[in-house]
């Protein structure tokens, strides 16, 4: 039997149908977490995040030009005495960095301070990533079935989300230490610290 006979080949119309077949299906989001957990349990992935290959984000200087300092709820003494990092398992935290409208002009000398901080956190194997967010965000919500979209006005909002750092820490108190050492606070920024819920 000659398997290369013409009638066994796809004609152009059939080929088109095969090309048009969907490739858009994705597995459930939980699959990734299941696989990572299984690989950790088998020892193929380290429980502790590896030393990151990390460079300070370019926006560090922009935060140094941060705004009027809004009330921060960080009680430094409180956590410094209460920390006992006995756990070996690392948790992931996000530091959301907010600006306020009264941002002082950029000061290049502060860039080095941000970079030094970021490098220090990176060397302690805690920094995973950090990114600046562009201006011009929008808030979306649905009101009585209608989509409402509102511009985030940097000039009038009390806090504007400007960027984030993703870090690994032993526990919340440990992450709080890292957040409190960020120079963003010194220059009037606000930081919200949240732990990632690794379901």
């Amino acid at each position: 039997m000659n398997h290369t006979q013409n009638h066994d080949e796809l004609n152009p119309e059939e080929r088109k149908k095969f090309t048009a077949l969907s490739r858009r299906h994705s597995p459930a989001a939980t699959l990734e977490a299941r696989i990572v957990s299984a690989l950790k349990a088998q020892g193929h992935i380290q429980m502790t995040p590896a030393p990151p290959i990390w460079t300070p984000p370019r926006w560090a200087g922009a935060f140094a030009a941060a705004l009027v300092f809004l009330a921060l709820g960080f009680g430094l003494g409180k956590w410094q005495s209460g920390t006992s990092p006995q756990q070996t398992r690392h948790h992931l935290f996000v530091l959301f960095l907010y600006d306020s409208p009264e941002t002082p002009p950029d000061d290049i000398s502060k860039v080095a301070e941000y970079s030094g901080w970021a490098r220090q956190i990176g060397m302690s194997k805690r920094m995973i990533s950090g990114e600046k967010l562009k201006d011009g965000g929008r808030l979306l919500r649905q009101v009585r079935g209608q989509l409402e979209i509102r511009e985030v006005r940097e000039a009038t909002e009390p806090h504007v989300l400007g960027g984030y750092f993703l870090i690994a820490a032993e526990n919340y108190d440990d992450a709080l230490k890292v957040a409190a050492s960020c120079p963003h606070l010194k220059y009037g920024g606000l930081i919200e610290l949240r732990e990632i819920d690794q379901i």
Partner: protein
Amino acid sequence: MKILSKYLAQRADRRLVRNFLARRDEQTFRALYHRHTPALYQLALRLASWNVHEAEEAVQDTWLRAIEALEKFRWESSLRTWLSGITINCCRELYRQRARRSDERVAEQYVQEDATTNDCEPLDLEQAIAALPNGYRQVLVLHDVEGYTHEEISRLLDIEVGTSKSQLARARRSVREALQVVAEKSANRRI
């Protein structure tokens, strides 16, 4: 251009694998996962006749086996081809388990998911592929959907090149017959 993009993709794979083996870190694994899982999952879905649970199981087993064997991977094929080979083996094992359970749910979930589609032709083709016997379906999916050559399929499925060609010819004939039935039914409805 295609060769360049393939080259760049392989170079990125090599870098990620090298970094992962050196560090065994979650971040690099996730990068590998995101690069290859969509394609592996799509392949597994078709090989498993759109059984979502089996496809996910196959993808999970693929990564567990691949990471365990990654140090031994010699780059004699692309990483994607190697991973696809593991996915195919996982799917074949699942066929055998399914056969033991006599638990066939051919195309059920796919039909549910895409029931509202306007263009029925790709769906009919998917159903025709899903209804093929396992051997035919594997060769047809790998050749006509995924674009592998008979030589590659021969290595992936551990069969002769001639077997791959004959399975493909029979698979195409079966698909054409199934599509013909659909077309005739559709014509009768219009009359």
